[in-house]
C-alpha cells in the first residue's frame, strides 16, 4: 500500500509537472507557431533609440505585432526595421492563410493610399519605443518609392519622422538662431551707451538746462495762473466769438479776392508781360551792338583829336605821307 502511495505521488508529480511545463510553454510563446503572421518592413533615417526586437507595433493604438529584426543598411545608412503583423488581430480577415494574406495586403495597400504611414512613438517614461501605424499623410499623397533592395516579398510601409525629431529640429533651429546673435557686440554697445549716458548726466550744461527748463515751467505756470486770473469764462467766450466774426470776414475777403483775381484775367496779362519781356531782351541785344559801335566811333574820334593836337596843320594840308628810305 505504501509502495502504491509512493508511485501515485510520483506519478502525480511527474504528470503534473510535465503538463504544467507544456501549458506554460504554450502560453509563453509556443502559441505563436499557430498564429498567421505577415512580414512588413520600413526604413528610418532617424535614430531608433529605444526600439528593440520584440517592441510593439500598433495600428491606431491597437497592438497588432512586434518588431522582428533591426538592421543598418550600409549603402544608405537607413535603419531597416522588419515587423511581424499577426493576422488574428484583424476582424473579418478569415479563411485560409492565402486568403488572409490577400485580404490583409488589400487592406494595407488601400490604407497607404489613404495616408497611412508608420512613426516611432514613446511607450512611456522609460524611453522604450514602439511603431505606430496611423494616418500621418494626407489622403491621395503620392507614396514614396521604397529604397533600393526592398523586394516584393515584404510589404513596405513608408515612415515619417517622429514628433520628437520635429521638436528636436525646431529646438536646433532656435538654438542656431540664438547662437548667431552677437551678444558681445550688444554688450559692448550697451556698456558704451551707458558710459556716455552717465557722462551726459554728469555734464554741468545739462544741469543748467534742466534748471532753465524748470524756471521756464515755473514761468509758464505763473503765466497760466495770471491768464486764469485775468480772463474769466465770459471774457474767453467773447474773445472766441470775436475770433469767429473775424474769421468769417477773412473768409469773405478771401472769396472776393479769388473772384476778382479770376476777373482780372491774370493768364492773359502774364502772357503780355512775358512777350514784352522777350522784346525787351531782344532790344537789349540791339542796344549792346549800338553801344559797341558807339564805343568804336569814340575811339576813332580820340585818335583824330590826338593827331590834330600833334599836327594842327594837317587839318588844312591833309595827312602827311610817311617818308620812304631810298
Amino acid at each position: 500500500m505504501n509502495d502504491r502511495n509512493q508511485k501515485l505521488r510520483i506519478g502525480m508529480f511527474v504528470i503534473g509537472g510535465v503538463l504544467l511545463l507544456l501549458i506554460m510553454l504554450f502560453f509563453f510563446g509556443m502559441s505563436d507557431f499557430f498564429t498567421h503572421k505577415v512580414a512588413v518592413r520600413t526604413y528610418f533615417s532617424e535614430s531608433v533609440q529605444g526600439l528593440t526586437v520584440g517592441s510593439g507595433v500598433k495600428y491606431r493604438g491597437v497592438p497588432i505585432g512586434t518588431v522582428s529584426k533591426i538592421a543598418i543598411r550600409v549603402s544608405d545608412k537607413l535603419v531597416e526595421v522588419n515587423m511581424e503583423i499577426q493576422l488574428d488581430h484583424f476582424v473579418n480577415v478569415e479563411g485560409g492563410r492565402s486568403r488572409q494574406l490577400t485580404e490583409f495586403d488589400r487592406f494595407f495597400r488601400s490604407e497607404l493610399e489613404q495616408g497611412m504611414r508608420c512613426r516611432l512613438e514613446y511607450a512611456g517614461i522609460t524611453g522604450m519605443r514602439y511603431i505606430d501605424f496611423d494616418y500621418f499623410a494626407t489622403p491621395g499623397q503620392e507614396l514614396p518609392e521604397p529604397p533600393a533592395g526592398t523586394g516584393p516579398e515584404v510589404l513596405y510601409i513608408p515612415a515619417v519622422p517622429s514628433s520628437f525629431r520635429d521638436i528636436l529640429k525646431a529646438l536646433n533651429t532656435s538654438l542656431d538662431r540664438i547662437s548667431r546673435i552677437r551678444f558681445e557686440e550688444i554688450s559692448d554697445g550697451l556698456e558704451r551707451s551707458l558710459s556716455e549716458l552717465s557722462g551726459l548726466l554728469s555734464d554741468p550744461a545739462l544741469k543748467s538746462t534742466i534748471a532753465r527748463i524748470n524756471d521756464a515751467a515755473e514761468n509758464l505756470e505763473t503765466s497760466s495762473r495770471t491768464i486764469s486770473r485775468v480772463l474769466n469764462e465770459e471774457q474767453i467766450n467773447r474773445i472766441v466769438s470775436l475770433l469767429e466774426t473775424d474769421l468769417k470776414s477773412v473768409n469773405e475777403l478771401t472769396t472776393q479776392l479769388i473772384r476778382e483775381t479770376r476777373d482780372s484775367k491774370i493768364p492773359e496779362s502774364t502772357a503780355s508781360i512775358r512777350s514784352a519781356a522777350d522784346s525787351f531782351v531782344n532790344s537789349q541785344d540791339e542796344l549792346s551792338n549800338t553801344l559797341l559801335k558807339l564805343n568804336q566811333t569814340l575811339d576813332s574820334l580820340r585818335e583824330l583829336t590826338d593827331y590834330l593836337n600833334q599836327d594842327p596843320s594837317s587839318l588844312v594840308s591833309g595827312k602827311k605821307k610817311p617818308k620812304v628810305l631810298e
Partner: protein
Amino acid sequence: MAENRAKTSRRFQLPDSVTEPVVFIGRVASALPLLRQKRQLRLKETLYYLDLCGAQSLPLVLLICFLMGGVLAINGQIQLSKFGSEIFIVDMVGFSVLKEFGPLMVALIATGQAGSAFASEIGTMKVDEEISALETLGIRPAAYLVLPKLIAMLIALPLLTVFGDFAGLTGGLAVGITVAGLPLAAYVERTLDILDSTTFLLGVLKSFVFAVLITLAGCYCGFRSSGDAQGVGRAATAAVVISILFVVVATALLTVLYSFIGY
C-alpha cells in the same frame, strides 16, 4: 629512471582536496555508460529519490515560491507606484521568477531536502562499512549509489522548477490584483505578452545544472565523511554549504552566459 619519475610525481602532486573531487566526478562519469543496461538503472531506488526530492518537496516549493513572488510584487508595488507604473510589477515578477528566483529557490530547497539526505545516507553507509562491502562484492559505489540519485534529481528539479515558476507568478498575480489593484485580465495579458518560451526554458535549463551540482556535492561529502556519527553530521552540513555555494556561483555564471546570448 623509475626513481626520478617517482620524485617528479611527488614534487608535482596536487593536494587530495583538489584531486579527490575530480577523481569522484571521473568515477561518476565513467559509470554513466552503465545506464544503457536496464539492470544497472535501479528503478526502485530512483523512484524513491524522485519521491523524496520531488513529490515530497513540492508543497514546500509551492509555498516558498508563491510567497517569494508575492514579496517581489509588494516591493515592486511600493517603488513603482511612485511613478504610477504599477503595471511593470508584471515585468519585474515575471522575469525575476522565471530567470533567477524560481530555479534558485527550488535549488536551495532541494539542497536542504536532498543534498543533506544524500550526504547523511552515504556517510552512514560508510560508517557501517557498507561501501567497503560493496567494493568487496565488486560493485562500483559511484554507479550503485550516485546514479539513481542523479537521475532522480535530473527529473525532479526541472519539474519542481516548473511548479516553482508557476507558484511564483501566481504569488505576484495575487499581490498585483489585490494590493496594487491591477485588473486580472491586464495582469495575465501583460504576463503572456512579455514572457516568452525561451526565457522560461533557459530558467528550467539552469535546474539541470543545479541538479548535477547538488547531487555530486551531497554524494561526495557523504563519501568523504569520517567513520563516526559526528562525521556524518559534518558531512550533511558540508553538503548543504557546498551545494548552496555551487548553486549561487553557477547562477552567477549562467546569468553572465545568458547575457552573452541576449537573455
